């Protein structure tokens, strides 16, 4: 049955293209019919909304006809409503002529953006979206007027993906504002945003943004198909739909990139990726994403290329450190002491002398403690934030060593690992290292270096098997493509980087032609 549903919905959605308001309430108890009889309509709406304190239904006269304005006052600007709708409606009474819907709109509400609702579902949908819906006796459709907007948080600096040089604005919770931030940056007429409504209860607006003359059609179809397939109660953040459209859920690696930076999104769109905006979430997803995307920050392109290449290397190295350092410690100190230089070994062993635990227990407990502190630090009220850092630093750092419970070296290793795991520009990528680190420690405790390597090989095999929207997750590295090496581990100067990543199969593989080095050509002969 589940399979049947899956196939059925897929087929249905494929034919449908964009989902609009009226299809939403089909499965619910609402009748669809919109009557010509004014009283029946009013009754129907009243039945649905009458328990709500913010629902208003004001009877007015438009010309010689009875009409009423329905709206949820919490969703629109009351002043605007009075100014633009109610007062304008008064003039119609004076006017007194018999008009139809279109002329009424033309004459009295010419400046307001509007939509007609010709069935009951649409009326309800418009009310829920903050329109003022005017129903007129005898008309076969209702007029929905958009009035004012609801307040949003102001655009602020990014809080999770900060940079030093570059644009400092971040997305907010309103999808319109977010899209406008992208539109302001890209003035390409092919920049398209397709909207979908996802969630049985929330009917959240989800928009796919792409540049039509760059983005590969097959990948785009796949994105559309997966978003239409989503069947979920509510979408409160882009994280909700991420799990529905990802290629594989059972993996510690994120297969979908998210960012709160408009400039990053613009860069991705121009590379030939699709961005998924979700109303109510300041985090925008981009697909397809590959592993190396998570090691890049938009600042890489604003700083000199030598520096950003170096920083990228640092990121890869710190990823490895965050992943394997604790397990290397376990492996080396329990199995392969001969790999350490004698003096270092002596110093480590001397420190470990009074420690009552084997290295693996020691490191497990410390890593666990750190994870607890980290979670506490994120979750706790700001006002008591100081406490954790003091308690953490004093108790875990110093007192534990002085009490002889753990060795100094180990504290250094745990601290260094923790710092290294914060280097990744995208927070949710560090989840992979946080989870796999513990497994690795276990492998190191059982099989030593052999176990660590075996696990790493298995991890690489797993990575090689992953795909994000049909693009191999390790694209650029495996399958190796020499053309993409200009923007993976290092970044070459922008004027030399003319190609879009080949793994995205962009329609226009060349970014721009004819760029040359800005440095002047070497002088011929001696100078005069």
């Amino acid at each position, binding site marked *: 049955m589940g399979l049947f549903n899956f196939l059925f919905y897929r087929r249905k959605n494929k034919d449908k293209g964009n989902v609009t308001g009226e299809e939403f309430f089909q499965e619910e108890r609402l009748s669809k019919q919109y009557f010509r009889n004014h009283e029946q309509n009013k009754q129907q709406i009243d039945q649905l909304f009458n328990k709500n304190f913010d629902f208003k239904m004001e009877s007015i006269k438009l010309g010689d006809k009875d009409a009423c304005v329905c709206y949820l006052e919490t969703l629109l600007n009351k002043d605007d409503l009075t100014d633009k709708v109610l007062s304008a409606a008064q003039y119609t009474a004076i006017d007194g002529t018999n008009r139809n819907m279109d002329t009424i709109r033309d004459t009295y509400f010419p400046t307001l953006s509007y939509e007609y609702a010709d069935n009951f579902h649409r009326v309800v949908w418009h009310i829920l979206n903050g329109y003022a819906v005017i129903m007129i006796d005898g008309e076969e459709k209702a007029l929905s007027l958009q009035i004012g907007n609801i307040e949003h948080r102001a655009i602020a600096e990014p809080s999770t993906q900060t940079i030093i040089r570059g644009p400092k604005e971040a997305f907010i919770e309103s999808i319109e504002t977010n899209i406008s931030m992208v539109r302001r940056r890209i003035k390409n007429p092919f920049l398209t945003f397709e909207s979908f409504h996802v969630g049985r209860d929330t009917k959240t607006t989800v928009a796919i943004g792409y540049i039509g003359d760059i983005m590969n059609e097959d990948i785009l179809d796949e994105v559309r198909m997966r978003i239409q397939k989503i069947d979920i109660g509510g979408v409160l953040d882009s994280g909700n739909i991420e799990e529905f459209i990802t290629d594989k859920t059972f993996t510690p690696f994120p297969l979908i990139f998210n960012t709160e930076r408009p400039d990053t999104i613009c860069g991705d769109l121009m590379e030939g990726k699709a961005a998924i905006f979700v109303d109510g979430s300041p985090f925008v997803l981009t697909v397809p994403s590959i592993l190396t995307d998570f090691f890049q920050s938009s600042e890489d392109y604003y700083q000199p290329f030598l520096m950003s290449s170096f920083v990228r290397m640092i990121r890869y190295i710190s990823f490895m450190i965050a992943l394997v350092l604790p397990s290397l410690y376990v492996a080396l100190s329990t199995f392969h002491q001969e790999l350490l230089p004698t003096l270092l070994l002596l110093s480590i062993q001397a420190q470990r002398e009074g420690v009552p635990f084997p290295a693996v227990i020691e490191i497990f407990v410390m890593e666990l403690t750190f994870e607890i502190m980290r979670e506490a630090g994120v979750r706790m009220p700001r006002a008591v934030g100081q406490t954790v850092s003091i308690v953490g630093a004093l108790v875990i750092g110093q007192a534990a060593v002085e009490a002889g419970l753990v060795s100094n070296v180990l504290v250094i290793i745990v601290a260094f690992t923790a710092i290294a795991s914060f280097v990744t520009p995208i927070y949710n990528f560090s989840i992979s290292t946080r989870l796999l680190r513990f497994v690795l420690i276990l492998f190191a405790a059982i099989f030593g*270096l052999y176990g660590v390597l075996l696990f790493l090989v298995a991890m690489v095999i797993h990575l090689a*098997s992953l795909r994000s929207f049909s693009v191999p997750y*390790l694209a650029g*590295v495996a399958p190796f493509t020499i053309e993409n090496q200009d923007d993976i581990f290092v970044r070459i100067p922008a004027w030399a980087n003319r190609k879009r990543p080949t793994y995205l199969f962009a329609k226009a593989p060349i970014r721009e032609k004819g760029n040359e080095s800005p440095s002047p050509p070497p002088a011929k002969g001696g100078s005069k």
Partner: protein
Amino acid sequence: MSKSLVEKISLWQLAVLIFIFEIGSVAVVGVGNESKQDAWLAVAIATGIGICLISFYMFLLKKLPGKNIFEIFTFCFGKWFGKVISFLYVLYFVYIASRVLRDFGELITTVIFETTPIEVVMITMMMVICYMLYLGLEVFGRTAEVFLPYVFSFILLIGIAILLSGEMEFENLQPVLAEGFGPIMKHIFPKLLTFPFGELVAFLVIIPAVTHFDKAGKVSGFAVLVSGFIIMYQKFIAIVTLGPEQLDRTVFPLLSAAREISLLQFIERVDLVIVFIVMFGIITKVSVFFYAGLKGLEHLVNLPYRYFVFPIAAIICYCSVQISANYAEHIEEGLKFIPFYMHVPFQILLPIAITPLLIWKGKKQQRGTDKHGSV
């Protein structure tokens, strides 16, 4: 026959696989040590013959593009006899896979985990290989690509590190060709030719899955050449570091050579690290034979090979423990028995035997299509 899982690897992935495959277990056990200080020369000559061999294999494959060796057998010998030959090859591949696995198990238990049972090492490693092959040939190719830089650069770095440690004695290379070419040739055929170069026969299963089949010949020839150079380089390091006498005595020559490394009073005992680098070579090598065997089974019983991954892996693990009582016996088998009774027939004689049949049948088929007109 289930054709839903048609997997392709790129030319570069093929080259990487051949390269890692070739230098994989050679780095562990070492070959051509009987030729003493001329071992590198023996490897050079064997590489030349190895390239001829892979060209010959390519010649066979090109007769029936897109068909692997098992399908070629069926084409040549008919359904039933072809299946018998294919079954023999499956046995051969599985057997060699377990031998390679044993090589590595011995290495680990000798050098690192003296008290660990060899079965533990083999089973854990086999589980990783299973995982990889279960995910398919594409994943295998990509994984090999990821590890190539490490394998390659570490083998290069060993030589440089030994040189910087001042442990190389270039006099060890002399006298060159003290006993003439005769003994060298005797060592090349069949031992050095069949291992590692003749083992490329397993690629008769993989090469047909390459995207640009027409270029596969050149690429694989090139890969053999490069890996020949690397093996030569390894031999060269082992000879100049250890000297011919010690080279003959030692069980794991490259490892003994790497033990001499001592740099900055910090980088010491790197031989352990080398064991782990070699690990990926072994994984590749076992996987190639394992995959070849699995594809053979797929051809024999018309079921997707994924069904057989775990059962055959269990068999390989069991075989690799049971094939010999100890390492000395294992090596003795590998040097005295295997080359003559298994490598030569399967790598050289049988392929040569099918050549006339293949040409004759191919011509007959062509005439047939010419007569009846192509579809």
